[in-house]
């Protein structure tokens, strides 16, 4: 009984085909597994850390809910409400301050934390030597105690048991902190942690009106409390408290944001690995199907419909994709899991070693969609293999274009992949940039490849070897365009990363030290300004002292709408996230750049006006005449935007995003902040003079902060380069595949050369020239496209000044070029030693 061929028949034929082994699929599987592994590793690591944040949320927050006030403590009523509506209440105070050694020879900025007896409500303090909590901060030898980070001891040159001075008080160091339960490692720390008892804070004299001091009130809920209801009740009971309320699931927002951004960026590098791999997949399947063209023609001769042929090979792609994706997922979990396990102690949270199925699902979906989309073109071509080829001596390479329906399927696959990029990206703008960037980059590399092929067709050197090398660049079926696209894409990513990183480092190392002030001094009391100015200007080598009054306030409404309901661009969200420094001034400062509106008269008195950073105005979607409502120490002030200023923040210039018209802040308790330039020799005397004279004034040393930023950058750049290196690895796999596919032709060339009298040295020179030419062309294209991408990212995304840094980029490319030649020669070495006779007999 005869029946129509079915999917089961396609599967039977496919499984017989697969018996031939995976030799033809190595490049396909490696490319796919590598891409999936990269995306999995990024997603899984992020999932593990974010999962850790969620699991430790209460510990990190230090309670079930946290209320934070700036400048002021909670009133008695507020504290009474919190105490009455919780199982437990704890108060901690945080501020930046200066600590110095007893003999005052060394001093440093510290992050001071004053805690009550209840602290910590969740988790344990771990100290060296171990101390019971109740003994931790008791007075010793008549001095109050402090526990400190180990690096404070190094900075001040003291030992445990020694004393330090904070403000007007000496503290004895009782122990070194090894673990602080509610401490989240900040991206940039301003100084080591020093923890003291809350009751000892007053005596330091640091608590001054307007000083930047944060008061945290944490509560533990009674069992059965619904956090949302509790929060709503709090807002109803104390609507004017003006505190920032944070639940456990909002703990460590900075770390969460940082991980989110890093994940976003690294994911896109991962997608690029898969994009490069996609080129390899297309080439590998094309080569495989070309090797199968006789089988395909035979199947057609035996009565197989074209649809069955596509089913047979699509099923093979499915099976091998599943295997490669599985491999990628395993590698993408195991490698980061081992790394995380190794550095778990240095992470801000304990990573959660779980499956993180969402990350795995996204990586698998990307892998599967990429492999099927990449396979459609060669499959569509294979469908058109004419059965008549069997009657001819040599089956021709697959050269026809697939039918229109296949082009539509490819389009659909690309659309789905784009959709997946948008769906999985936390920042849709970034996703749009990536997709457009990928599209432009791929188009440019393809264009470059086809221009080079066309140019090479016009070259007709007299030397036979040179002619062969040139011909190998443009002959039909040459790997040139594929290699330029895939390896070029990988190298372009590396060139772009190296240059962006180089520009950031240059900014930190060269530009900032020249343009930025040497010190920022904060928390200068109004009564101290005259002395402060006198001391600073009296030190040789200081210049450009600028000092402004400052209060902290929060933007609560934009044009009368609560900020939580306003759509604000991601790059401007920092400004509404918490309290910001504000100033109020009459006359416009020199070198202010007004881009819209006008500055108010120096003696202006009238309704509140505001001069806003132009970038923020764009992010908020506001302009001249719009209003911002600020909450300054519980007072709400609505001000009209009178002017917009362009501020170059990258120079660490002393400026304020929000400047209010004169008189607005009158009566508000405020401090002063000052910026001073100083020669390197003047830095130490300046810091000593100011901090000796004013216990409450903190000095932020810009050079140290920059060094910390550079260290951070170095750490991140290792991770970024590692992932970017994967794109080059993917490109190298594609290159290796392309070279392997061309081996048969090279063998034939070598035999003919030997027959005609060429020495092995000469043949080796031909290979070096061929790989070198391919490598140089690819490197040049990558240099151009990578530089263009780096310029676009630096200029439009990072708003950074751009300088072309060819040195490192060219070095990177030179290494890549050398690798290309070595990789090619490694594959061709055997050919050189091959005997000609057997080949000629068999052919």
């Amino acid at each position, binding site marked *: *009984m*005869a*029946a*129509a*061929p079915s999917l089961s*028949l396609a599967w*039977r*034929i496919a499984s*017989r*085909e*697969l*018996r*031939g082994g995976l030799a033809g699929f190595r490049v396909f599987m490696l490319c796919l597994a590598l891409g999936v592994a990269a995306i999995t590793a990024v997603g899984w690591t992020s999932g593990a850390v974010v999962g850790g944040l969620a699991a430790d949320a209460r510990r990190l927050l230090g309670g079930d809910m946290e209320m934070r006030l700036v400048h002021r403590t909670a009133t008695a009523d507020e504290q009474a409400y919190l105490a009455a509506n919780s199982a437990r209440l704890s108060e901690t105070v945080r501020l930046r301050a200066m600590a110095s050694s007893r003999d005052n020879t060394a001093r440093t900025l510290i992050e001071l934390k004053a805690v009550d007896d209840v602290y910590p409500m969740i988790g344990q303090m771990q100290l060296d030597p171990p101390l019971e909590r109740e003994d931790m901060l008791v007075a010793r030898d008549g001095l109050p105690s402090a526990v400190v980070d180990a690096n404070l001891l190094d900075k001040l040159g003291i030992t445990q048991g020694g004393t330090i001075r904070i403000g007007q008080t000496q503290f004895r160091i009782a122990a070194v902190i090894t673990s602080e339960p509610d401490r989240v490692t900040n991206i940039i720390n301003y100084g080591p942690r020093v923890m003291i008892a809350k009751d000892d804070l007053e005596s330091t004299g640091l608590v001054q009106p307007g000083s930047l001091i944060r008061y945290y009130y944490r509560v533990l809920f009674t069992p059965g409390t619904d956090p949302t209801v509790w929060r709503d009740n709090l807002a109803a009971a104390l609507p004017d408290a003006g505190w920032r309320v944070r639940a456990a699931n909002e703990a460590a927002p900075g770390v969460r944001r940082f991980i989110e951004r890093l994940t976003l960026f690294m994911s896109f590098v991962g997608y690029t690995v898969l994009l490069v791999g996609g080129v390899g997949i297309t080439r590998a399947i094309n080569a495989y199907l070309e090797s199968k063209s*006789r*089988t395909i*023609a*035979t*199947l*057609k*001769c*035996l*009565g*197989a*419909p*074209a*649809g*069955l042929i596509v089913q047979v090979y699509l099923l093979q792609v499915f099976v091998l994709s599943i295997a490669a994706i599985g491999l990628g997922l395993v590698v993408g979990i195991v490698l980061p899991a081992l790394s995380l396990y190794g550095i778990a102690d240095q992470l801000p949270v304990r990573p959660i070693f779980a499956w993180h199925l969402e990350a795995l699902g996204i990586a698998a979906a990307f892998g599967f969609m990429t492999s099927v989309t990449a396979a459609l073109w060669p499959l569509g071509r294979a469908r058109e293999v*004419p*059965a*008549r080829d*069997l*009657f001819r001596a040599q089956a021709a390479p697959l050269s026809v274009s697939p039918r229109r329906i296949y082009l539509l399927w490819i389009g659909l696959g690309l659309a789905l992949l784009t959709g997946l990029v948008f769906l999985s990206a936390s920042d849709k703008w970034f996703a749009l940039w990536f997709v457009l960037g990928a599209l432009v980059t791929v188009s440019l590399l393809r264009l470059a490849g086809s221009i080079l092929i066309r140019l090479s067709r016009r070259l007709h050197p007299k030397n036979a070897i040179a002619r062969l090398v040139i011909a190998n660049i443009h002959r039909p079926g040459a790997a040139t365009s594929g290699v330029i696209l895939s390896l070029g894409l990988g190298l372009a990513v590396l060139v772009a990363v190296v240059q962006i990183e180089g520009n950031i480092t240059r900014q930190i190392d060269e530009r900032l030290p020249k343009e930025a002030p040497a010190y920022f001094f904060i928390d200068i009391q109004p009564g101290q300004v005259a002395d402060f100015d006198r001391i600073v200007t009296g030190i040789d080598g200081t210049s450009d002292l600028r000092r402004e009054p400052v209060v902290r306030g929060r933007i609560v409404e934009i044009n009368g709408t609560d900020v939580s309901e306003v759509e604000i661009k991601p790059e401007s969200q920092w400004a509404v996230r918490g309290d910001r420094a504000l100033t109020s001034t009459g006359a416009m400062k020199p070198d202010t750049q007004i881009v819209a509106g006008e500055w108010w008269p120096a003696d202006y008195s009238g309704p509140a006006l505001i001069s806003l950073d132009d970038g923020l105005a764009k992010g908020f979607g506001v302009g001249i005449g719009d209003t911002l409502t600020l909450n300054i120490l519980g007072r709400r002030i609505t001000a009209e935007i009178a002017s917009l200023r362009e501020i170059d923040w990258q120079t660490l210039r002393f400026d304020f995003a929000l400047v209010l018209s004169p008189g607005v802040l009158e009566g508000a308790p405020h401090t002063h902040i000052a910026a001073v330039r100083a020669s390197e020799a003047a830095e130490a005397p300046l810091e000593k003079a100011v901090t000796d004279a004013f216990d409450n004034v903190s000095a932020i040393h810009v050079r140290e902060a920059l060094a910390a930023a550079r260290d951070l950058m170095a750490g991140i750049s290792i991770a970024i380069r590692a992932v970017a290196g994967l794109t080059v690895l993917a490109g190298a796999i594609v290159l290796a595949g392309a070279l392997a596919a061309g081996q048969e032709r090279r063998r034939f060339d070598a035999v003919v050369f030997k027959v005609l009298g060429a020495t092995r040295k000469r043949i080796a020179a031909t290979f070096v020239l061929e790989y070198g030419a391919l490598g140089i062309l690819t490197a040049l294209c990558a240099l151009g496209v990578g530089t263009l991408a780096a310029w676009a990212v630096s200029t439009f995304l990072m708003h950074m000044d751009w300088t072309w840094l060819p040195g490192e980029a060219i070095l990177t490319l030179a290494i890549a070029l050398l690798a290309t030649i070595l990789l090619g020669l490694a594959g061709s070495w055997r050919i050189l030693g091959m005997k000609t006779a057997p080949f000629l007999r068999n052919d």
Partner: protein
Amino acid sequence: MNAPHTPDTLIALEGAELTLPSDAGPVEILRGIDLAVRPGEILGIVGPSGSGKTSLLMIMAGLERATRGRVSLQGTSYEGLSEDALAKLRGENIGIVFQDFHLIPNMTALENVALPLELAGHEDAFDRARASLDEVGLSHRHTHYPGQLSGGEQQRVALARALGPSPKLILADEPTGNLDGETGEKIMALMFDIHERKGTTLILVTHEERLAARCNRRVVMADGNIVTDTAAPMAAD
């Protein structure tokens, strides 16, 4: 010459032309072929290289479409049939034997023979394939892969594969061209024997006059035309 289709014709070509494009302009491969082959005939096609023998075979197999003229199998014209319909027609009616055997390397002899039967949807494909292999004397080679077989054995597998679906027509393109003389003889003896027993129509393209002489009809081609078409008595083995 004109050979219109008649009820006792298996395959007929009427004014079949084949012109292929090339860089130097169109090349006329076949220039109006008229040919009718009756069921049970053994037709030998001979002629110098480039005379169009293989192209004629391809047109008969439906692997190449005639640029002009008509090709029909048992009254069914190839014209207007889709590629898949032609593949089905081929699978059910025509067996093809190639000079290079064209066995699928990753399939055993049995699987190679069963393949056209599976493609035609026969549920007993493997039983019939076994019988077909036994018929060509390869009952001991069912599980061998093509690479493990000699050239003669490979061609016998190819023959079993062509015969498996019991086609009405076998097209053979230089079936002994890649075999030594003795093995070639054996293959041809097998083909003629099968023809004797089953009455399958056989169309052979060959260079070998000796082989052509054993056919009961002989067509000589030159420059895309049939120059002679003669009935010949079967030569004795």
